[in-house]
């Protein structure tokens, strides 16, 4: 990307249109996939009589996550930015999971009855 001069306040890497276009198409593809997947029954996996894993939600979430990751890494430049930024993103994800996980743990274990 020869024509880009690095600006005085930007030591950091400038992401160019080529990357953005690629990501755009990846995201559009992901959307198509997830909509498509939701119309097919991907079946389930019976671990026990009570514990059953359904694939549809898992696939949907997996696609959503990969789309999110693309946006974060390229549109939001995390891939090219400092450790600190990555750490911040990591902290966000971690606390989010802590909130969801630890709250859910209560609800799940309530179903186990008294003891």
């Amino acid at each position, binding site marked *: 990307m020869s024509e880009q001069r690095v600006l005085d306040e930007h030591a950091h890497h400038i992401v160019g249109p080529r990357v953005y276009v690629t990501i755009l198409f990846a995201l559009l593809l992901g959307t198509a996939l997830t909509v498509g997947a939701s119309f097919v029954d991907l079946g389930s996996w019976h671990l026990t*009589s*009570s514990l*059953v894993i359904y694939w549809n939600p898992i696939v949907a979430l997996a696609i959503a996550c990969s789309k999110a990751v693309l946006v974060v890494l390229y549109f939001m430049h995390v891939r090219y930015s400092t450790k600190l930024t990555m750490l911040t993103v990591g902290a966000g994800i971690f606390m989010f999971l802590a909130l969801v996980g630890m709250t859910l743990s209560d609800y799940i274990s309530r179903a186990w*009855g*008294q*003891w």
Partner: protein
Amino acid sequence: MSHISPVIWQFLVKWLTNSALFPPEASRLAPQMDALLFFLILVSLIGLTIVVLLVVGFSILYSKKRHPVAVQVEGSTLLEATWTIIPLGLFLVMFVWGALIYFRVFTPPANAMNIYVVGKQWMWKAEHPGGQHEINSLHVPVGKAVQLTLISQDVFHSFSIPAFRVKREAIPGRYTTVWFEATVPGTYHLFCTQYCGTNHSQMIGDVVVMTPEDYRKWLAESTSGMSLAQNGERLFASLSCAACHNARPDARGPSLANVYGSKLTLSSGGTVTADDAYLREAILNPSQHVTQGFAPIMPTYQGQISEEGVIALLEYIKNLNSDYRVQQTLTTTDLLPGSEGKAAPAGSKSAAQGPAAQGKVKP
């Protein structure tokens, strides 16, 4: 002492003579709870003494007068490890000990007698299996394990008997249980300790612990004529539950005889124990609790039965150990005044709206 104001002096005397510093121990659990409590107090006192002694001691030894020039000390890994590990160890002991007590308080013994308690703004309603109702008071026999099944009709309440060292929240829409075994006859405080609105501080009462014979006497003279189970039976009939829940070969609902406490397999595949909580859910949200082999056709009774009504039904189902009774109720249904307990048409939202969800069935 003459220079102390007479008022304060009076207070001191009164306090020292007739005001306790520690609540009475009136349940089997209380001494165990207090043992832990004293252990905690002891540890705290020791810790506090250590800190205070060190602070005071250092302040005297190393005051600027005595010790004009400070000696820089970077720190000591050994010391820091000590006061990291020792407290941690103590805390873990407290955790385990506390957990054991917690287990005890919330796991009632099998032979416990069950009393239902419904909390509502701002009163406690106790329902004895014998059909005795009481408000803001609870009569229990001495030396018998008593299990309370608590539920709230509106907001969070909390059922607290300090002398027994037990406390449990009454939650809207869910049963909670706690148990105790009173050891000393007498009258004790009963508080609502979860803030529940304007008259929170008036939601108090007495727990009366009686000798077995007194208790029997009390039961006899305060009975309402019909037991909870009998009320339940009438309700069972008037809601014509027996139309499906009769043990006939073509019955559309499972037989309820001896169902209580049994393991059920649900149409969803999971298995559950048919306890109070499950039966309550099965009445109010049936479609999530369909027994295997039956169609999800049972209508919901959400908003049509009062909590007392549900409790009566539970008592009936609990005591239902033969299908014969059901057949009887089935035939006696038409004898009952049909109006009674005839609920609003299913699906009427207004009935389910928030505080309006008071039952129309008063046995």
